[in-house]
């Protein structure tokens, strides 16, 4: 080992140790738990703990609620990622326009929801979504749309939570996109304009390639985030109505911490881990093909 590489190891050692203790070891422990039948009975008497192989996974596949929660999570991700990233990009493009005044003020105002507490904002949004008195329904009434029971109807509960989540998180990616947009080469933009390219063509062929890597990063993070959505349904709907907002993570939380079926919950965690890994891998392949990475 050269002196240089020794120094490098020395500098990375603290971080590697922390990663080992809080990430690698717990992951292996969770994997080990997922092949046991750890339940509240094992908490009572360790003699009740057995190795069960893949039984937890088999049982999981036979549990309707697991499939429902998987479906709900995918709906969250499929609708939520474009919604959140689209809103962020739109807001960033608007803020990037030269004619917009008081930019710092807008940036702060739009970023503010991201740094507020989920629980506090969820309480406010529950009032906004209220079927009888909610501001949202009163607004809809003005344009002649009948009342929507946002959080009480199993069909509208996911869209309702997505509206809340989008409002809450779009500010973060907006700031990231604002930074990326500032780096779009202005000479290219002007050249395109001189060649007669309209707004859309300039966005498609100049802006988009320039912010491609940032977009990919935002997509990867958002997909991982939406697959792990938990706090919002937990505080807005408690997984209801009729379990229409129970997500994989919510299911895992209930199994693991509420009922202490840690074997089963670890199996769920492992499935989720594999899912996120796969999706991220696919996304990075797409990115590589487009030479963004």
């Amino acid at each position, binding site marked *: 080992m050269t002196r240089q590489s020794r120094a490098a190891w020395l500098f990375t050692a603290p971080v590697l140790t922390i990663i080992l203790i809080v990430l690698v070891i717990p992951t292996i422990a969770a994997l080990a738990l997922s092949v046991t039948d750890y339940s*509240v009975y094992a908490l*009572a008497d360790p003699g*009740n703990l057995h190795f069960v192989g893949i039984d937890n996974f088999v049982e999981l596949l036979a549990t309707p609620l697991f499939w429902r929660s998987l479906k709900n999570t995918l709906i969250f991700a499929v609708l939520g990622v474009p919604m959140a990233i689209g809103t962020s990009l739109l807001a960033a493009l608007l803020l990037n326009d030269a004619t917009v005044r008081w930019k710092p003020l807008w940036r702060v105002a739009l970023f503010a929801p991201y740094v507020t507490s989920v629980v506090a904002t969820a309480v406010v949004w529950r009032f906004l979504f209220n079927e009888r008195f909610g501001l949202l329904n009163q607004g809809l009434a003005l344009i002649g749309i009948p009342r929507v029971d946002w959080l*009480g109807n199993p069909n509208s509960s996911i869209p309702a939570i997505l509206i809340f989540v989008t409002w809450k998180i779009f500010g973060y990616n907006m700031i990231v996109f604002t930074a990326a947009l500032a780096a779009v080469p202005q000479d290219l933009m002007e050249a395109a304009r001189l060649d007669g390219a309209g707004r859309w063509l300039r966005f498609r062929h100049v802006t988009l390639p320039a912010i491609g890597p940032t977009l990919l990063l935002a997509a990867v993070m958002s997909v991982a985030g939406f697959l792990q959505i938990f706090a919002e349904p937990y505080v807005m709907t408690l997984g209801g*109505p009729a379990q229409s907002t129970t997500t994989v993570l919510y299911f895992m939380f209930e199994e693991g*911490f509420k009922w202490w079926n840690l074997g089963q919950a670890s199996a769920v965690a492992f499935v989720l881990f594999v899912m996120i890994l796969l999706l991220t891998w696919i996304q990075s392949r797409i990115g590589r093909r487009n030479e963004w990475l």
Partner: protein
Amino acid sequence: MYAADHENCRFYRCLGSGSLARGATIRHRRTVQSRNEQGGPTRRAMLGMLPALAIGACARSTGVAPLRVWAMSYEGDYSPHLMPGFTAATGIPVEVQSLPSTASHEKLLTAHAGGALPDVLMLFNGWIREFAMIRAVAPVPSPALTAGLSPGIRDALRIDGRDYAVPWSVAPQVQYYRTDIVGEAGYAAPPLDWGGWLTMARAIKRRRPDNYVFLMLLNWPGALLTMMTQAGATMLRDHATRGNFRSDPVRAAFAYYANLFAEGLAPRAASTEVQDPLAAFAQGYFAIWPSSPTTLLDLRRRATDIPPERWATARLAGPNGPGPVSGDSASLCVSTTTDRPAEAWALVRHMTSRDSELTFQRMIGNLPARLDAWDAPQLALPVLRAFREQMAQPAPIPPVVEWERIQGEIQLAAERVVRGLQTIGQALTALDERVDQLLAKRRALVDAGRIA
């Protein structure tokens, strides 16, 4: 406000009671000295004094570490008012932490797994078997602690012939009703049988088509469980190792319950949607509300919105008249991990004493489990009569540790029926399958002879 201050004090005390406070005072003095040397107060010195002041304010003169108590909902919020008497008599300070009831089950289990349970904890009666099984709570050491209690309540909590908890806060459900709305429909009080209840509800709905009659939250199992018990359902079979929900009494209870929603007599709403049930009750959004005695406290707080002459209480209706009712009654337990069991039990004795029970009844409404408390004049109020009668008839709790979870599954099945996602037949078949799945572990242990 009180809770926040309390929490702050606790935080600083956790840092290491007396010695730290003294250290801070010394530092504080040094700060003052150096300020004098510099000649004049600096902002930094003043800011430096703030933590010292906070710690100084929390420091207690006694060197005794406080006993820790965890309790849920109103019991947790108001328990600190019971403690000055105990501290004055014994010199032991008590620290109460209030847990939100919706998150308390997981909090308690996690605390047990982590060895962090407090000395004394409140458990809802349905949880005692589970916590006794995992050896989180100790058996009651002396029969004197449970002497003089209402026998119906005490016996229902006995596990394999032993007591693990001292009944504390009795909370049977009754119906709170709007006297004016029920009166307009031609009734002095709600009928107490299912047929009459429904007839009255239809009469009210005809007069007030835009409002509802009942409030039965779709994610709270109390109302439906009561109906099932009253219809005579035995919920589990084969030594409580399998679900027994495809039975006539369960079907009858489900049908009656679902019909209330189908006829528009109850709103299809969960607790997350009804943000202020008191305001809705005051506005007449619904006229009849099956609820527990703590609603008495809410109604007292909101007396300007809904004056006392506008509401009254009655027992819940059953198929042929009142019967057993499920509730959120709670008991006090001592954790197995406490290193001061004698003091902890002394605290339980204090909290379940006649005086404490009566004070608590005045504050939060929940009723005393102690029989000798019932001759007190405060319990002779007409509004408490329904509770008093109901108290002697608690719904039996099936003897399985999974019961809390099964209750949730029952309510989910009912919600699917109410929302028209499944028929009663489909929902009950699915419920039986689900409960069999939840009880698989218990079944295996019973078959192996590891549990009775």
